[in-house]
């Protein structure tokens, strides 16, 4: 790969007395923005579009009947239900808890705040297999807390919660920090209760961020594998998630089957992300 991005003389975009478009339709293309778009699309295609297309093409190789047989296999269907259901549930929890944590981090001052601030990202930094090991020692048979969820459905929920924790926090936090406090104060001085202030002023501003975090969190949950390896036990119809089914197919050199299941996950994720986006727009408009 040798895509050379030469830093040639830039078109003087800043000095360009372009009329600002009122409709919000964007600026006309300049050479620089055209180059930017080109690089962005190339990058995106190489990393995302082409591999995704390859997955779908592979899935289609088995034909419609093969595809249907794979995804309606009882064990696979159970795994998909478990994965998607748990990911949805975890996302709901994250929306509430993530917003709460972001709020505490931005609006409150307390001892250990900086430490907490840094620790939030640990689930990102930790290899997920290590996360699984940590969760197993804390919430497994030898739990010092006396809580044993190993090899049960709550284990899947717990592992998803752990790996998706940072998403909503990290998307809401900066928006909350930038929020104009004066509007809140004005509302309060006009007699709005704290709840009304939160609902009418703060929530509409942070809803897009929450939605973005929720979408990320869902997508991450659906694809989780590493942290479950040790914790969930991979029991069919009980704690087996979709990634394990995909791996089983790959181990049997059944790439079409693996791609078929992956395609289903892709479509579900897409639907959820779009739904979240629509919901979010509605909420903002109403707020």
């Amino acid at each position, binding site marked *: 790969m040798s895509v050379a991005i030469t830093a040639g003389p830039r078109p003087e975009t800043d000095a360009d007395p372009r009329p600002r478009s009122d409709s919000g339709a964007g600026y006309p293309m300049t050479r620089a923005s055209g180059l930017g778009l080109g690089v962005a699309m190339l990058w995106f295609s190489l990393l995302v579009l082409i591999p995704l297309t390859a997955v779908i093409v592979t899935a289609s190789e088995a034909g419609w009947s093969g595809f249907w047989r794979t995804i309606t296999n009882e064990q696979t269907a159970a795994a998909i239900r478990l994965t998607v259901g748990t990911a949805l549930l975890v996302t709901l929890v994250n929306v509430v808890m993530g917003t709460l944590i972001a709020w505490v981090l931005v609006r409150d001052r307390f001892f250990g705040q900086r430490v907490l601030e840094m620790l939030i990202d640990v689930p990102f930094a930790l290899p997920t297999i290590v996360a699984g090991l940590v969760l197993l020692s804390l919430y497994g048979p030898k739990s010092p807390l006396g809580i044993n969820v190993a090899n049960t459905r709550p284990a899947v929920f717990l592992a998803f919660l752990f790996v998706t924790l940072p998403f909503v926090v990290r998307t809401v936090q900066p928006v909350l920090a930038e929020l104009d406090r004066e509007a809140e104060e004005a509302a309060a001085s006009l007699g709005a209760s704290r709840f009304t202030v939160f609902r009418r002023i703060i929530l509409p501003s942070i809803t897009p961020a929450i939605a973005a975090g929720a979408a990320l969190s869902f997508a991450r949950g659906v694809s989780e594998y590493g942290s479950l390896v040790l914790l969930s036990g991979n029991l069919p*119809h009980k704690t087996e998630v979709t990634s394990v089914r995909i791996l089983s197919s790959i181990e049997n050199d059944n790439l079409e089957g693996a791609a078929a299941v992956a395609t289903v996950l892709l479509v579900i994720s897409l639907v959820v992300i779009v739904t979240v986006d629509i919901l979010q727009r509605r909420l903002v408009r109403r707020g």
Partner: protein
Amino acid sequence: MKWRTRATAALALVAGLALSACTGSPSSGDTVTLHIVGFAVPEAANKAIAAEWNKTEEGRNVRFETSYGASGDQSRAVVNGLKADYVHFSVTSDVTRLVDAGLVDESWDDGWNKGIVSSSIVVFAVRPGNPKNIRDWDDLIQPGIEIVTPNPASSGAARWNALAAWGQVVANGGTEEEATEYLTKLFANVVSLPGSGRDATTSFLSGTGDVLLAYENEVILATQNGEELDWVVPDTTILIENPGAVLKDAHPKATEWLNFVLGPVGQRQFALKGFRPIIDGVDLSGIEGVKDPNNPFPEVENLLTVEKDFESWEALSTKFFDDEDGIVVKVIAESGKAQ
């Protein structure tokens, strides 16, 4: 503008370094680099064997570049272009994949060792002192016994366990139906199906289950690492045979390496890590972590092998592990629904 010049200079430097790293190493002197691709378990043994080989005239100027991981993943990686001179996998079907891809000669398992370079057996790892008094296969299907085994669906290596469980019924006079019935009962007692043998060991050592279906070399290694567990060798069990092969376009030194691995020095290094040697006359003194240092690898009364009891890997792959109709695949799927 200054930062940009600096950034460009830095980039150029990095690119230059990367280039020199690519071209620099192999051309120095007459040093040969062999690429070993293997499953994770024998990494330590292979390293020790390499160190021994480097001491000999033959292997003096050989350097190794190694890659270890899950057996199936490693095999697929080689098919997809990972450079390899010598491969060492957990199950024969992972080498067959390379034969199908034209990377390994079809005659790879024609030699006296039939392509096998290391071996072990399936054993029951239990809690210290064996509190549930587990002695034989029948004890595993008693109500209330919790079993941990790696997942035969997603881990090729875990297939040895399922084969042993099924095969011991038939070997002791049972019918195939009875064997399948036994397997169903066994999987009904399984509480965890981790992704690989190593994961299963970790899960068991973290307190899950009463018994772990494990490989003898894994439990010996765990004991060497100071873990607290005990193990039982059942009267009937299966011989685990890990294949090794030299690739078609490998450096000639790779064949010499394979011969060294198969010889007494190579097999002694395997034995030190808990593998059963595949040849007689290997020095078995001073093996740590075994129960009886004077008899580190006690003889098994009735030892099943793939060749003797299951025809071939090809036949058993379809019969037991086919994605839809395999006996083991079906049993595992049913086990989850039953409860």
